[in-house]
């Protein structure tokens, strides 16, 4: 690309861009495509799609605004960015809800065609903020582009309906931002060719509009500035863009292949868990039975029936559905079957804010079942980590014959990042631990090392037995109400999960091991914690952090790590679940930063908190 005009080329390290508009404006698609060009340009990036729970909220309303934020950089980054430097607004409502979040001095691109009296009123503006006399946007650099008009002009000669033409306007915007960030158009063209290959007219229209958007920036000199973010120095290898939902599904497929046991995944639709069911339902060629059941209880019990039969029985849901599964999960604990449950946490309680994220189910996963009921709890820390956690869930469930809950998050499911594609040949095989020898078989006889009972494929000759929810005698499995036996079995079930502690990696400290302050988190907070830590470190202070992926049992070295710091700061998207566990298990004082806004904790807020805690250490 050659730029002949007097445009300043601004090379920056990192930048955050946000697209916002009506949910019908194709914001998510626009964001995804911009993400692809970012990947193509070799930047590291992290994305945050955020949408209303209404499928098609009334047009032009503030509550119907859908958005897609992406941070990309010439270095490693960990979050989709707190506040955008560039905001692309498709209508007044999108401007209204995002005015507070754009950086002062930031660049705002608006589709000025949409700033009609009617739309302004719907968005709750008094007067038009684009008027030269308006004060509303005085702190920003505003670029008005008649996106709708330009789209229609570009398609003037095409014989297609007005509505169909309008539908192309997000690609005009994409052309504009591609120019602004010195991006090639090839990846988007490739995508369009693939998507609309069979509809030549739609393809032609979108390509036309895309190029029109790009070219008007050249010819109309809309922007006095262009940005360039040089490629990041990522580890060498082949990369792709991955979101948590694909990573989770792929991890399960790899695990299924490595252990050579097919998957039965049963679920009942719920945001945001449905994504996994959709993905697996379309991948039947990998011997996956993906079943939509009549409710969540049927989903978990069907998966349990599959686990009983000798298959990988897996189910997934979110808050309201997880609540329904509890009794069946306890049956899995009691019958010691390798059921895997994914909880894609969303903002609760009850229906809450279905499309928003939260970490509110930790205590429920650990303790939210009747009686002394223990199982393994894991939590992925990033979109790509969902892949590895899926494999680990299969390994541990089948090796220890116990249910595993994977505490995933709505945020992880939807967000994406560059992923160095692993060589799956290097992922170790797993042993399917099926018992076939009838000699000396007892249903509840345990492996000495793992305390796991034998897994029997139902139908194996000579191993007939009955299991169930009633308490049974250790080893023989005969039902009994013997008091001492119940005490023993309760302890054995507990100890079995504790044995897993010998089989999981130690936690590694990130940052300054000799710091006084340790940040502790789990799940998706890894990104913002890391970003905050690096900012504080850059100011010459020392900070360390850990992310706990194994929440039950906890890694063995956790206590020693916690005790070796003067100050422990726990960070969570809840009011203190892990914080409570750490305080009670290790009896140490902690400081706590918890937010339940449905959004990741802003890095700036975390930095402030860390600095405050560091200052308080100095005073002592």
């Amino acid at each position, binding site marked *: 690309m050659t730029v002949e005009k007097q445009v300043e080329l601004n090379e920056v390290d990192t930048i955050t861009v946000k697209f916002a508009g009506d949910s019908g404006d194709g914001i998510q698609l626009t964001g995804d495509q911009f993400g692809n060009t970012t990947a193509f340009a070799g930047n590291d990036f992290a994305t945050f799609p955020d949408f209303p729970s209404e499928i098609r909220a009334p047009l032009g309303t503030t509550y119907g605004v859908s958005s897609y934020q992406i941070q990309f950089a010439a270095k490693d980054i960990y979050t989709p960015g707190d506040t955008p430097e560039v905001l692309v607004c498709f209508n007044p409502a999108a401007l209204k809800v995002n005015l507070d979040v754009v950086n002062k001095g930031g660049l705002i691109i608006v589709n000025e065609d949409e700033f009609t009296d009617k739309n302004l009123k719907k968005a709750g503006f008094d007067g038009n903020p684009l008027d030269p006399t308006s004060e509303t946007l005085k702190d920003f650099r505003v670029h008005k582009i008649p996106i709708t008009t330009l789209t229609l002009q570009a398609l003037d000669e095409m014989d297609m309906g007005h509505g169909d033409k309008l539908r192309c306007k997000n690609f005009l915007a994409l052309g504009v931002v591609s120019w602004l960030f010195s991006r090639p158009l090839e990846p988007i063209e490739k995508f369009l060719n693939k998507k609309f290959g069979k509809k030549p007219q739609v393809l032609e229209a979108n390509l036309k509009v895309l190029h029109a958007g790009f070219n008007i920036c050249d010819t109309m000199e809309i922007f006095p500035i262009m940005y360039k973010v040089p490629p990041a120095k990522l580890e060498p290898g082949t990369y792709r863009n991955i979101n948590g939902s694909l990573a989770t599904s792929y991890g399960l497929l790899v695990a299924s292949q490595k252990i050579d046991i097919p998957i039965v995944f049963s679920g009942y639709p719920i945001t945001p868990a449905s994504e996994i069911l959709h993905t697996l339902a379309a991948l039947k060629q*990998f011997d996956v039975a993906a079943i939509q059941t009549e409710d969540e209880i049927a989903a978990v019990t069907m998966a349990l029936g599959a686990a009983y*039969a*000798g298959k990988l029985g897996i189910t997934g849901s979110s808050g309201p559905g997880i609540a329904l599964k509890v009794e069946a999960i306890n049956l899995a604990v009691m019958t010691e079957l390798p059921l895997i449950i994914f909880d894609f946490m969303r903002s609760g309680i009850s229906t809450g804010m279905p499309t928003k994220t939260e970490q509110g189910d930790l205590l429920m996963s650990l303790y939210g079942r009747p009686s002394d009921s223990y199982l393994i709890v894991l939590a992925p820390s990033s979109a790509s980590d969902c892949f590895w956690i899926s494999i680990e869930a299969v390994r541990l469930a089948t090796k220890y014959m116990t249910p595993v809950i994977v505490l995933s998050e709505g945020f992880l499911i939807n967000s994406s990042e560059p992923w160095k594609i692993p060589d799956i040949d290097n992922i170790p095989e797993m042993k399917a631990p099926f018992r076939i020898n009838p000699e000396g078989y007892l249903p509840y006889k345990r492996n000495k090392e793992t305390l796991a009972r034998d897994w029997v494929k139902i139908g194996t000759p000579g191993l007939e037995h009955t299991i169930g929810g009633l308490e049974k005698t250790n080893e023989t499995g005969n039902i009994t109400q013997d008091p001492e036996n119940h005490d023993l079995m309760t302890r054995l079930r507990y100890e079995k999960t504790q044995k897993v502690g010998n089989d999981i990696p130690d936690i590694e400290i990130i940052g300054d091991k000799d710091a006084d302050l340790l940040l502790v988190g789990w799940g998706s907070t890894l990104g913002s914690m890391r970003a905050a830590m690096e900012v504080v470190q850059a100011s010459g202070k020392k900070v360390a952090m850990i992310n706990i992926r194994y929440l039950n049992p906890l890694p063995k070295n956790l206590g020693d790590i916690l005790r070796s710091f003067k100050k422990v700061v726990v960070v969570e998207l809840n009011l203190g679940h892990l914080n409570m566990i750490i305080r009670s298990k290790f009896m140490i004082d902690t400081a706590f930063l918890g937010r339940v806004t449905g959004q990741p904790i802003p890095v700036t807020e975390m930095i402030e908190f860390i600095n405050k805690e560091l200052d308080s250490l100095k005073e002592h």
Partner: protein
Amino acid sequence: MSTETNQIKYKATDFKSAAEPRWCPGCEDYAILKAVQTAMAKIGRPTHEHAVVSGIGCSSRFPYYMSTYGFHTIHGRALPIATGLKLSNPELAVWVVTGDGDGMSIGGNHLIHALRRNSDLNILLFNNRIYGLTKGQYSPTSVKGMVNKTAPYGTIETPVDPLGLAIESGATFIAQISATYVKELVDVLIEAYNHKGTSFVHIYQNCYIYNNGAFDGFTNREIRDDNNVKVEHGKPLIFGKELNKGLVMGYGKFDIVEFEPNKIPDNIVIYDETDPVLIKMIKDLEFPDSPVPMGIIKRVEAPIFEDVVREQITMAKDKFKPDLKKLIEAGDTWEVK
């Protein structure tokens, strides 16, 4: 497998476990247990090829008394568990034992969906019109006005109609029988097994302790022949001790006619287990004005859930080679040097 060698192969006692049944003396669950074991011996498959899955209730203790594979699960959920099992191992003969409370109250939703899903399960619903295990509360099939622990002034709700529920849910095999008809019960169980698809067997089972005599009006040996009509495909709908009564077409319902024994009139309806109209009319027979139907009410063929799931997997495999590496590396990739 020929039936001849099968008969030599297995005895009913081969399907008995070492555990002593703990039902109350006089409970008809014993009779059903024996019938199931007899049917399995006749079916002629070894114990490891059968699995019995149950919910919670007196009836659901069943698997412990069988020498087959067994899973005593949680209240109301035997059906989806059994479906997961059958889906995972279609070779197994999967039997589900459930009660009127287990199957039609707490598990009612699963029953509807299991019946329309048509997995090859054999559902045995023990209907004693009471909650036995929890000591005598009313169940969804308790007769309206029945006085019991939770309804000292009588129950208020209209009872569930099990056959109607099964018909409306699209069940492909529906049978009704009383535990007192030992031989017929065995026959029905074998037919339920032979049916490919979900078989729903509604069994009247007397609870000796909390609802004794609930079915006396039509199961008592003295009078039962006058109050039951044997339903058999291709056979006339006749009943009575002397086989002197029969059903003829009335206005939207059956009318009862009497005739001289052995002289069956031409207008007696010949039953057709595939005819939706007859199926509906036979289930509408209301005791005591009409006899209670016993036998196979409905039997039709339909695609089987687990078969179609398998077929789709095979189809997908033909269409897309299952190449994990390719899948993971699909889409837009880029090299970092």
